[in-house]
C-alpha cells in the first residue's frame, strides 16, 4: 500500500513527509490487528469504554462482596484480610479503572466530533494512552492471580497512607503492584490529557470559538488541565513510596526522619482535583443532555463554563479538607474550611443553571433525560452533605465514618456514574446506529435509582451513629444492624439494575432497533454526522455560526448546503482528507511498559551481581519500550489521503492516483 506516494498534491503544506518505507504499515480494517493498531479516536474511545465497563463490573462485584460481609454483624463472608483487599481494590478500580476511562471514552469519541475535527491532535499518542492504561490496569489487578504470602491484590486502601504502605507493615508485593499500576495509569492519563488540550485548542472547526464550544468540550478541557496539573503530585508521591519500599530511602520512614504526613499532602493535592476529574465530565454530559431534551439552549452558558473553570481552580486549594483530623492547627483548618465552602458557590450555580434550562422548556422524558435528572437530584444531595463536611468541627465527627461513604457515593454514583450512564444512553445511537428500548432503559433507570438510594441513604444514619469506615466487622449492640441490612438489600437491587442496564446495552449493540442520524433532534455538531460516524468523521469540515451549531444548521439549511459545497471543493483541491496511518508501535510501547512494570514488581530483589529474573525482565521490558518508541518515531506521520464523493463514499485508489506516469 503506497498511498502516501500516490496522492495528487496541489498544496505543498498538505504534503505528508516522505518516509523510507522500512516499516510495516498495517491497513486491516477489521479483526484483532485493526484493534491493536487503530489510531481512530472513535475506536480508541470504544476500547476505553469497553475496558472501563469490564472494570466497572469487577469493581461492582467487589462492592457486593463488601456489602455481603456487612449485611449482618460479625459477618463471615470474608476474612479481615480479604475485606481490606476488597475495599482497597473497589475504590482504586472504580476511580482509576472505571470512571476515569469511561470519561476518557467520551472525551475520545465525542469531543473531536463536537469541535468538528477529524481526529485528535496526536492519534498514535492516543493509542499509546489507551494501551498504557490497559498495562496499568493489568498490573493493579495482577495480585489477584498470584497466590502466596508475598503477593496478593493491594490492601493498603485506595489512599495508601504512609507508613502503613511501607515494607515494615505490608512486606507483600501487593503495594508494589498498586504503586506501579497507578504510576502507569498516571502516564496514560497525562498523555491523553495533553492530547485533548492540544486538540481542543488547535483543531476546532472554523467559527468554533472558545465561547461556542459545547459545554462537554469545555469540561473535557478543564478536566484535562486538572489531570495534567494534579497527577504529577501523586507521581512524586508514588516514586517516593517506591524508593522507600525498594531502595531504602526514608521519605515516609519516621526512623530516618521522614514525615508520613507528607504523603497525605501529596496524595490529596492530587486526590481532591481527582474528585473534580471524576465529576466534571459528568457535569458536561448532563449540560448536553438537559438542553437537548428540554429543546432549548443551556441556561447561562458563560456562567456554566466559568463555574466549571472556577471549580477546577478552587479544586487545587482545598485538599486539606481531607485532613481536618490530622491536627493541622486551628488557622489552617479554618482556611481550608472556608475555601471548601467557597467551592459550593460555583457548584450551586451549575445546579441553578440546569434548573433554568428546564424552565420554560419542553421536557422530553427519554431515558437519558431520566438519568440526567437523577444526576441533578442525587448530586444536589451529595453536594449538601459535602457542605456539611466543609464545616471542620462537624467533619471531625464524620471523617472516616459511613456518613462520608454516603456523601461521596451520592457524588460519585449519583453524580459521575448517573452522568456517564446518561451519556452512554444519549450517544449510543450516534456511536452504533442503534437505539436502546425506552421501556428497558427506564426500567434500568428506576432499578438503579431506587437501589442506589436504598443502599446509600441509610449510611448517613450509620455514620452519624458512629460506624467507622473500612471495618470488616461490627458488633450487634451498636444500633447499626438495620441500616446495614437495608443497605445490603439496596446494593443487590442496584446490582440488578446495573445488570439490566448493561444487558440491554449489549442486546441493543447486536440486535437493537436501527436508527438514522440525529434521533434526539439534538443541538451539537456530532449529531450532523451519519450513524455510526465514518472513519474520517466529516466529509466537509463544518463551519460554525452559532453556539448550538447543529441546531443552527438545521434551521439554516440552504445557507449551510451552499457553504459546504464550496468548502468541499476547496478541500478536494487541497489533496483530499488526510488520514493517519495505523500503527502497531503505541501498542508495542505499552506492552514494553507492562513487561517492565511486572518485572519490577513481581520478582524479589536479588542483590547479588549479574542478570537475574528481576533485572532481566525489567531490562527486557525497557528494551521493548525503547523499540516501540524508536520505530514510532522513525515511522513518521505520513498517513494517506481520502477522496470522497458527495455521499461520503471513498473514490480513491481507483481514480485518485493519477500521479506520476
Amino acid at each position: 500500500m503506497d498511498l502516501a506516494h500516490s496522492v495528487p498534491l496541489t498544496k505543498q503544506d498538505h504534503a505528508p513527509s516522505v518516509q523510507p518505507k522500512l516499516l510495516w504499515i498495517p491497513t486491516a480494517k477489521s479483526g484483532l490487528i485493526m484493534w491493536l493498531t487503530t489510531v481512530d479516536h472513535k475506536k480508541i474511545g470504544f476500547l476505553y469504554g469497553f475496558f472501563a465497563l469490564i472494570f466497572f463490573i469487577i469493581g461492582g462485584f467487589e462492592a457486593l462482596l463488601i456489602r455481603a460481609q456487612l449485611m449482618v454483624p460479625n459477618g463471615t463472608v470474608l476474612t479481615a484480610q480479604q475485606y481490606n483487599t476488597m475495599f482497597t481494590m473497589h475504590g482504586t478500580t472504580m476511580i482509576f479503572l472505571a470512571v476515569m476511562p469511561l470519561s476518557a471514552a467520551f472525551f475520545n469519541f465525542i469531543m473531536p466530533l463536537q469541535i468538528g475535527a477529524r481526529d485528535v491532535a496526536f492519534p498514535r499518542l492516543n493509542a499509546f494512552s489507551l494501551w498504557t492504561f490497559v498495562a496499568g490496569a493489568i498490573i493493579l489487578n495482577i495480585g489477584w492471580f498470584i497466590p502466596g504470602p508475598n503477593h496478593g491484590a493491594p490492601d493498603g486502601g485506595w489512599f495508601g497512607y504512609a507508613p502503613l504502605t511501607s515494607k515494615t507493615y505490608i512486606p507483600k508485593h501487593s503495594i508494589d503492584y498498586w504503586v506501579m499500576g497507578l504510576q502507569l495509569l498516571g502516564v496514560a492519563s497525562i498523555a491523553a490529557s495533553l492530547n485533548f488540550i492540544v486538540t481542543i485548542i488547535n483543531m476546532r472547526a472554523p467559527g468554533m470559538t472558545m465561547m461556542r464550544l459545547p459545554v462537554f468540550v469545555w469540561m473535557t478541557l478543564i478536566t484535562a488541565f486538572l489531570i495534567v496539573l494534579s497527577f504529577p503530585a501523586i507521581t512524586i508521591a508514588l516514586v517516593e513510596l517506591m524508593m522507600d519500599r525498594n531502595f531504602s530511602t526514608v521519605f515516609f520512614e519516621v526512623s530516618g526522619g521522614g514525615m508520613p504526613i507528607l504523603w497525605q499532602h501529596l496524595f490529596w493535592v492530587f486526590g481532591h482535583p481527582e474528585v473534580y476529574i471524576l465529576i466534571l465530565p459528568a457535569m458536561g454530559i448532563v449540560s448536553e443532555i438537559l438542553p437537548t431534551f428540554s429543546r432549548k439552549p443551556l441556561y447561562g452558558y458563560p456562567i456554566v463554563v466559568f463555574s466549571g473553570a472556577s471549580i477546577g481552580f478552587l479544586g487545587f486549594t482545598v485538599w486539606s479538607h481531607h485532613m481536618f483530623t490530622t491536627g493541622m492547627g486551628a488557622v489552617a483548618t479554618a482556611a481550608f474550611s472556608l475555601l471548601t465552602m467557597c467551592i459550593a458557590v460555583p457548584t450551586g450555580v451549575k445546579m441553578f443553571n440546569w434548573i433554568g434550562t428546564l424552565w420554560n422548556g419542553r421536557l422530553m422524558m427519554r431515558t437519558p433525560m431520566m438519568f440526567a435528572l437523577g444526576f441533578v437530584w442525587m448530586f444536589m444531595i451529595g453536594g449538601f452533605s459535602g457542605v456539611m463536611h466543609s464545616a471542620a468541627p462537624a467533619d471531625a465527627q464524620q471523617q472516616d465514618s459511613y456518613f462520608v461513604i454516603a456523601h461521596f457515593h451520592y457524588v460519585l454514583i449519583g453524580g459521575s456514574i448517573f452522568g456517564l450512564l446518561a451519556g452512554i444512553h444519549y450517544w449510543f445511537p450516534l456511536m452504533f446506529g442503534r437505539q436502546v428500548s425506552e421501556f428497558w432503559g427506564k426500567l434500568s433507570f428506576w432499578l438503579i435509582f431506587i437501589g442506589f438510594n436504598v443502599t446509600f441513604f441509610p449510611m448517613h444514619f450509620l455514620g452519624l451513629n458512629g460506624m467507622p469506615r473500612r471495618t470488616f466487622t461490627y458488633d450487634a449492640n451498636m444500633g447499626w444492624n438495620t441500616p446495614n441490612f437495608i443497605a445490603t438489600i439496596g446494593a443487590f437491587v442496584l446490582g440488578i439494575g446495573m445488570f439490566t442496564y448493561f444487558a440491554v446495552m449489549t442486546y441493543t449493540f447486536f440486535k437493537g432497533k436501527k436508527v438514522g442520524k440525529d434521533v434526539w433532534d439534538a443541538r451539537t455538531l456530532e449529531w450532523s454526522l451519519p450513524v455510526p460516524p465514518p472513519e474520517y468523521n466529516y466529509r466537509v469540515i463544518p463551519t460554525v455560526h452559532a453556539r448550538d451549531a447543529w441546531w443552527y444548521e438545521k434551521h439554516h439549511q440552504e445557507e449551510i448546503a451552499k457553504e459546504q459545497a464550496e468548502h468541499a471543493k476547496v478541500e478536494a483541491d487541497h489533496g483530499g482528507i488526510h488520514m493517519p496511518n495505523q500503527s502497531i508501535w503505541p501498542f508495542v510501547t505499552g506492552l514494553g511498559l507492562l513487561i517492565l512494570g511486572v518485572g519490577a514488581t513481581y520478582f524479589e530483589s536479588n542483590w547479588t551481581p549479574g542478570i537475574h529474573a528481576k533485572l532481566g525482565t525489567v531490562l527486557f521490558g525497557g528494551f521493548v519500550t525503547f523499540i516501540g518508541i524508536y520505530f514510532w518515531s522513525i515511522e513518521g506521520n505520513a498517513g494517506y489521503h481520502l477522496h470522497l464523493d458527495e455521499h461520503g463514499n471513498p473514490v480513491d485508489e481507483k481514480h485518485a492516483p493519477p500521479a506520476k506516469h
Partner: protein
Amino acid sequence: MRLTSLLSTSAHWGRAALAMGGLALLTGCDLNFWRMEGHQSTMVVDGPVARSQLGVFMVTVWVTLVIFLIVGGVLAYATWKFRAKTEADEHAEPPPQSHGNPLVEIGLIAASVFALVIIAVPTLKAIWYTHDVPGGETRPQLDALIKKGEAYEVTATGLQWWFKFEYPLEQINGVGSLVTSNELVIPANRPVRINLRTMDVIHSFWIPKLAGKVDMIPNRANHLWVQADKPGYFWGQCAEYCGDSHAVMRFRVVALAPKEFTEWLEAQKLPARDVAPKPALAGAPKAQFAALRAFKRNEYGFSDKYAETPSRPPLESWREKQNPEKGEDAALIAKGKALFTAKSCLGCHAIRGHGAAGITAPDLTHVGSRTTIAGAILENNSEQLRRWISNPGAVKPGNKMSLSYARTDYYGNKIDGIQLTAEDEVALVAYLESLK
C-alpha cells in the same frame, strides 16, 4: 378526623413495609435506627466538645435543608410543569430559545454566599473552641490549669491494634508514669487533654459521644481535648485504616467523679495483686460489652448469642470489676503465674510487682479490673479470656500475640512457639482474672 385516620393508615402501611423486612426483623434489630442513639452516636452526646461539633452540624443540616426544599421544590415543579405531556407536545415547535438572565444568576450567587456565611460563622467559632482546652492553649497555661485541678492530662498511644494510656501526672516510684491499656479512665466534668501518639502506623482516636476524632500520626504531636458531663462509660474506636485488624481496634473510656477517680488512681498505682484468695462477693449479673463471633467453628467458647442490652448500666459493671472475683483458687492462680513466665508472656507484657516488664504489649498489672480485653472487643470474663489466649489470631487477625504461638505457615511449615494445653489456659485465665 380523616387526617388522623389517614395518618394511622399510612403509619400502618409504613410499619408493614418495614416489617416486610420481616427479614430485617430476623436480624434481631430495632427499626428505630434513625434515632441514632447507639453507643457511638454523634447525635446524642455527653460532652461539650462533641456538643459544639453537633451544634455546627445541625446548623449545616438546617441551612441545607431549607435550600434543598427551595431548590428541590423548584426543580420538581419545573420537571412537572414543563414536561411534554401529550403526543402533540412532543411534536410541537420548540419553545423560545432563551439563553439565561445574568441578574438571576448574580442574585442566586449572592444568596448562596449568604447561606454559606450562616454556616461559616459557627464553624469558625467551633474550630477554635474544639481545638484545645479552653484557657489552656499554651503549655504554661495548661500546666496552671492542671495545677488548679481544672484540667487533666493523659497520653494515648496507638499500636497495631490496641491503645496504651499513660498518666504523666501519676508517677510511681521507680517505675515512671502509670500505664494502662484499652480502657481510659478520666475524671468527669473536667477538661482532659489527651496527647496523641503512635508507635507504628497512623491511627485515629475517636470517642464519638465526647469528641470528634484526631489522628495519631508518627512524628507528629497531636492532641485532643474532651470533657465528660458526668460519670459514664463510653465507646471508642480507631477511625483510620491501620491494617488487618483495624475494625477491632477499639477502646473504652470511663469517666469517674473526683473521689472515685482518686481511689481508682491509688488502686492502679499499687503493684499487681498477689494471690491471696478473699471471701467471694455476691454474684452480680454480668454486663454485655461486646462480643466477637468466633472465626473458627471448633474454637473454644464459640457462641453467637448476644445480649442486645446490658443487663445493667455498664458503669456499674465496671465498678463491680474493681473487686476480686468470687471463688478464687489460689493454687490455680499460682500455677497461672508460673505459666505466665514459663510461656514467655512476660517478654511483651508488664505486670508490675510480678517480675514482668515487657513494654510492647498491653500492661496487665490490673487487667482483671477492666471490663474488656483484646482491645475492647471481648468482654473480660473467663470464657472470653480463654477464647482469646487459646487462639488470638482467630479473634484479632494478624495480631502480634498470635505470631508468638506455634502455628503452621502458608507453605505448611510448622513454626515453633507458645503452646498451651487446656489446663494451662484455665490456670492462665484464673491468674489474669485475679489481677485486680
